[in-house]
């Protein structure tokens, strides 16, 4: 041990440390939680950044001993009540809500740039460092200041707004820059930028995430993972690990529950097959579970892993669709196949290998695991052959998408503990109720014995819709009684979390000479990897969120999903749609070229519009019969018009650099707003003694702003300030049921449930006021703030609370609301971009990107824009630079943020716009439709068509690498 002295946020500190201890770990031990960990000390994410003598550095790259005598500042020092500013307050973790925000923090909150908030303290310090040296920084200087900080949520663009806002306020400007456009003059909060309810706390770096809930003395779980993509465990000896002092439990396929389940957090009965045990003898991907160790410290757990003796019988790995589909390919699941309902009459389990376990389908999805087929479906409308016969032009093309990772900055993490005989799970999840259901089934306990608390989530993007670690920690806590923390490493995030399914999509389109589509055929093959999580629904969504953009009488689709030994796939923002969209939109672009027609004109001719009836949805249900839907609102017309105008569609741009060619591209996109007839959400609202409210929502906010949506619903409906609504959300003990955050259901379903609860509360308030004012309800109206006005007088909510909660009252007002629907509200959008392609190097730079989105009424316009920027940048990343590389043995070669190439602030388009196109939708709460996932559907086809416009080659596979582009151009 050695001594180190430094100043922490202005206070001198003297601490003992070892030689190898990183500053980040030392600060964490001091309770400085705002220096986060996003890359396991590779130095590539900046989440751990602190100011060292005024310069931003990554505290994971500094040894504690290196900062001897230096001045270390964390986000805490920004707080105006911090001792450095002469005020009072906890020096290190200002979690007291009374603490005010500094001008920078306020600007971040107000401009909507605090999404999940995991990166926010680091971003704030970067801007602080910048403004300390540069009073009026340029956009390039802002980028440079933030160049080392990775944010997966925001797309970075609104940081410029935040900086502008802070500077304007500092200058005392009267005319502050607008953070976002406003909508719906008839409403007070809905459609207006208002601070995201959880943002101030996150901007202070307060305790919010799972890891912040972990008390000293908590045990650590670590996982021994398979080095082979396909193997059997032939022998396993854990005795040496078990004997290690400090080890409490070792879990393997021998002592885990003998229960099959799916990781997919979907409504029961799930369309995803139950094809895994917690641990199995058969290992199906590099990173598959071999053994878990629970120990007092992470170090002991790691040492114990090294003491586990395993021998493997290595099998031939299956890594791509062609191999999986080939006759005689090794079966990834060679065990018995069972059906809960609807077993096919020819089901034959002869020759099933018991070492492979089982695959149990809840209902038929036409899988044939012995042939590596996890799911299969086809369908269509009209007569596809007739449609092609009517065509003057037919094109057939194949498109491929790659395996990309969600990379939430906070990796998967769970903290499990026992409390009075019940299991409590602090989770970073999209699906708390599915976690509870799956865990209780695995443990063999009742659901009321398990509580799941969704903490603030440091990004999820679909990967946290699957239960990939919660059940293991839950089991270990249940068996040992120990509190346990299980946090994925960044590498585990790549190899054992969730990724996009690689797909191969063959498109065939037929059209008349005038461009009218006569037939559309989509044959999609997906690679689900080792397990069938979302194996039916993700590929189907690729069809159901891309084909209905066009009005065509003859449509046919076929989906086949294959098992393989690549790292697991699952849900990822967009849920298949980005891939379907890539294929369908590209095929339309290629068809336009074939017809000699303008791309935009072809889209205009065939696109969906308000009033269209989408017959195709009849056969695109999620593993069940779907229903045709009428399009009640569609903003495609104005989005296309404005986008085309703004980007000067049809006008050729020239670069002064002779090596650069500039091209423009476009795509139209759609998504859903939750799943009609499948999803459901609930909320409850209670009036407090002073006329303020507690809202309980099942909605699972992942940093997207859903909590702000639900609070807004209540405040708008009840004519009260938003601060008068406190919210508890997504705690299975406290709040009512919600399916969770997926399928773009948040605003529509969870927001709808909150609105319905508030409406019910409003009726109660009016009833009571009618009694108090002796006036019929028809004479009454709610008046802001918190008042009911009649003809004869008015009562405040305070009066109503006292009246109802007194000894003679009717009791505390408390209302519930739920939301289910048979109706669909589709968000639409048009994405335009301009790219510069270097014909010598093949490098592509996205110069301009305009995403014009119709989300009905944008409930939180600035947060809606943030969702769009984030979704677009992620998919620009997928299109150009991100890709999981596997070697011939199925090992991921780049399981880290740096070599995987996540987009950083210097990767954003020079001119990046997220525009909101208002439409009047009749179904969602105050007309809101979804906005986040849809934003992921445009970048790949828009960029690829722009590349074609620039250099005349079609790049039909992700990512569009310089190497591919040069090759397509016939360059050496």
């Amino acid at each position, binding site marked *: 041990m050695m001594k180190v002295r430094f100043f922490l946020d202005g206070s001198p500190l003297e601490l003992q440390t070892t030689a190898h201890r990183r500053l980040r770990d030392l600060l964490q031990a001091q309770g400085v939680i705002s220096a986060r960990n996003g890359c396991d000390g590779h130095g*590539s994410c900046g989440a751990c950044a602190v100011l060292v003598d005024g310069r*931003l550095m990554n505290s994971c790259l500094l040894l504690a001993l290196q900062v001897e005598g230096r001045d270390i500042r964390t986000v805490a020092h920004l707080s105006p009540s911090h001792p450095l500013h002469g005020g009072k307050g906890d020096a290190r973790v200002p979690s007291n809500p009374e603490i005010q925000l500094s001008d920078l923090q306020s600007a971040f909150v107000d401009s909507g740039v605090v999404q999940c908030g995991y990166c926010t303290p680091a971003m704030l310090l970067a801007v602080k460092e910048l403004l300390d040296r540069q009073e009026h920084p340029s956009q390039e200087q802002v980028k440079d200041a933030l160049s080392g900080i990775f944010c997966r949520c925001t797309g970075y663009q609104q940081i410029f707004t935040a900086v502008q806002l802070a500077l304007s306020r500092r200058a005392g400007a009267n005319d502050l820059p607008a953070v976002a456009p406003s909508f719906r003059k008839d409403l007070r909060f809905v459609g207006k930028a208002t601070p995201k309810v959880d943002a101030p706390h996150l901007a202070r770096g307060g305790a919010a995430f799972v890891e912040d809930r972990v008390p000293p003395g908590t045990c650590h779980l670590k996982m021994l993972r398979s080095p082979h993509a396909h193997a059997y465990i032939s022998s396993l000896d854990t005795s040496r690990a078990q004997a290690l002092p400090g080890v409490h439990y070792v879990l393997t396929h021998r002592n885990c529950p003998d229960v099959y389940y799916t990781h997919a957090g979907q409504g029961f009965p799930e369309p995803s097959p139950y094809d895994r045990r917690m641990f199995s003898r058969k290992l199906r991907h590099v990173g598959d579970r071999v053994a878990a160790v629970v120990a007092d410290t992470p170090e002991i757990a790691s040492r114990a892993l090294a003491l586990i003796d395993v021998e493997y019988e290595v099998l031939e790995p299956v890594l791509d669709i062609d191999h999986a589909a080939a006759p005689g390919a090794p079966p990834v699941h060679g065990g018995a196949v069972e059906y809960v309902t609807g077993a096919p009459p020819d089901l034959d389990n002869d020759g099933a290998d018991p070492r492979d376990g089982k695959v149990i389908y809840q209902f038929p999805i036409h899988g044939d695991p012995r042939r590596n087929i996890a799911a299969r479906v086809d369908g269509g409308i009209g007569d596809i052959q007739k449609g092609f016969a009517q065509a003057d032009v037919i094109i057939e093309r194949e498109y491929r998408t790659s395996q990309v990772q969600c990379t939430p900055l906070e990796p998967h993490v769970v903290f499990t503990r026992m409390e009075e005989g019940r299991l409590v799970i602090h989770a970073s999840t999209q699906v708390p109720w599915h976690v509870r259901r799956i865990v209780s089934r695995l443990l063999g306990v009742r659901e009321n014995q398990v509580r799941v608390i969704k903490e603030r989530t440091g990004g999820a993007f679909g990967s946290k819709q699957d239960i990939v670690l919660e059940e293991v920690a839950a089991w270990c806590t249940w068996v040992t009684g120990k509190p346990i923390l299980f946090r994925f490493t960044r590498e585990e995030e790549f190899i054992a979390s969730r990724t996009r399914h690689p797909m191969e999509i063959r498109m065939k389109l037929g059209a008349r000479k005038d461009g009218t589509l006569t037939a559309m055929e989509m044959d999609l093959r997906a690679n689900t990897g080792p397990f069938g999580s979302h194996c039916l629904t993700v590929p189907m969504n690729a069809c159901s969120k891309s084909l209905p953009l066009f009005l065509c009488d003859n449509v046919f689709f076929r989906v086949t999903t294959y098992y393989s030994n690549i790292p697991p796939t699952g849900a990822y923002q967009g849920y298949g749609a980005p891939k379907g969209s890539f294929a369908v939109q590209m095929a339309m672009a290629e068809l336009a070229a074939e017809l000699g027609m303008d791309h935009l004109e072809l889209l205009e001719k065939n696109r969906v519009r308000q009033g269209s009836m989408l017959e195709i949805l009849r056969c695109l249900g999620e593993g069940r019969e779907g229903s045709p839907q009428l399009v009640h609102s569609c903003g495609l017309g104005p989005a296309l018009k404005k986008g085309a105008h703004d980007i000067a569609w049809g006008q050729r741009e020239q670069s002064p650099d002779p090596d650069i060619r500039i091209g423009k591209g476009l795509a139209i996109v759609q998504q859903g707003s939750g799943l009609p007839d499948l999803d459901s959400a609930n909320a409850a609202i209670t009036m407090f003694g002073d006329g303020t409210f507690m809202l309980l929502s099942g909605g699972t906010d992942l940093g997207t702003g859903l909590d702000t949506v639900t609070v807004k619903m209540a405040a708008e409906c009840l004519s009260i300030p938003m601060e008068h609504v406190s919210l508890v959300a997504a705690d299975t003990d406290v709040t009512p049921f919600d399916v969770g955050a997926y399928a773009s259901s948040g605003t529509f379903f969870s927001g709808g449930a909150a609105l319905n609860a508030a409406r019910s509360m409003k009726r109660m308030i009016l009833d009571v006021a009618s009694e108090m004012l002796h006036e019929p309800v028809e004479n009454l109206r709610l008046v802001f703030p918190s008042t009911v006005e009649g003809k004869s007088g008015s009562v405040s909510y305070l009066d109503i609370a006292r009246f109802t909660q007194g000894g003679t009252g009717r009791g505390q007002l408390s209302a519930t609301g739920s939301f289910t629907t048979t109706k669909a509200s589709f968000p639409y959008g048009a994405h335009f971009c301009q790219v510069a392609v270097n014909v010598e190097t093949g490098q592509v730079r996205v110069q301009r990107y305009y995403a014009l989105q119709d989300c009905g009424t944008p409930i939180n316009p600035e947060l809606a824009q943030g969702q769009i920027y984030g979704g677009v940048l992620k998919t620009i990343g997928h299109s150009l630079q991100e890709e999981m590389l596997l070697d011939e043995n199925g090992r991921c070669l780049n399981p880290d943020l740096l070599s995987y190439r996540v987009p*950083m602030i210097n990767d954003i388009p020079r001119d990046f716009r997220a525009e909101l196109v208002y439409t009047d939708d009749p179904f969602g709460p105050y007309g809101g439709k979804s906005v986040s996932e849809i934003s992921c559907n445009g970048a790949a086809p828009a960029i690829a068509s722009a590349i074609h416009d620039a250099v005349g080659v079609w790049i039909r596979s992700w990512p569009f690498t310089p190497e591919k582009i040069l090759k397509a151009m016939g360059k050496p």
Partner: protein
Amino acid sequence: MTMGFHRPTSLAHATELKASLGAGAFFLAGGTELNSRASRLDPLHLIDISALELDFLEKERGSLVIGATTTIQELIEAPPVPTPLRQAALNITNRNIRNQATLGGQVANNKNWGALLPALLVMGARIRGLDERGNHLEMELRDYLDEHPPALLVSIVVPLPSAGRATAVDQFTRSANDIPMVTVAASMGRRLERVHRPLLAVGGVADRVLRLEQPEALLDGGVLPEPAAIRRMIRSAISPVSDQKGGAHFKRHITCVLLTNAIYTAFSAAKDPGTEEMG
């Protein structure tokens, strides 16, 4: 795992420590490489050189002497630093890294993609340091990179560009913060519209950053050839291998493109001192 941490306050003590602690001991500068969990280095002992006062920047007879622990960001901010070196430093896009990483660390790290190394090579940089016995050592950077002796780097000496000489740098990455696949630098003078004493360096095509002597010799004294001819010269002088960053063929192509462009840029920026005087 590191067991010992030492912070000597004199150069002599630093080299003594290194000599006594042996191969498991490393000089610690910024620590962006040594402390990174991604690093393959596994030091047993760290000799922190931050107290040696090596963060200086001085002019010395036509050269700039840059102390080894000058950070990359300080280099960017220091007025006397020649533009190409600043540009090369800015090619490390990540400011957090630039704030912490040092020039000495960049040189001693000797990675084949080191952002500053091609620029330093074509600017004719030398290193000064102390060998394991504490003896003064001064050598061409190029020899240092080739031999990579276990010396303590004290400073990097960068000759200030002589009149009319120009340098251009470039690198190829797939994304903003990507570790480059190829880095290049070209430096030359111009005499009577002819290339004068060109120096060329490339990274990413061999195990370390290379000077390309053959093309240098071919270009020297001649009129600037057509780009295709220059590319041919470069192509035959390198033999990259395929890896995760790109195929060998592609790397070769990119090196040819980038370096040819750099040669053209440097040549057009270079001025003939004779014509300068006359003008």
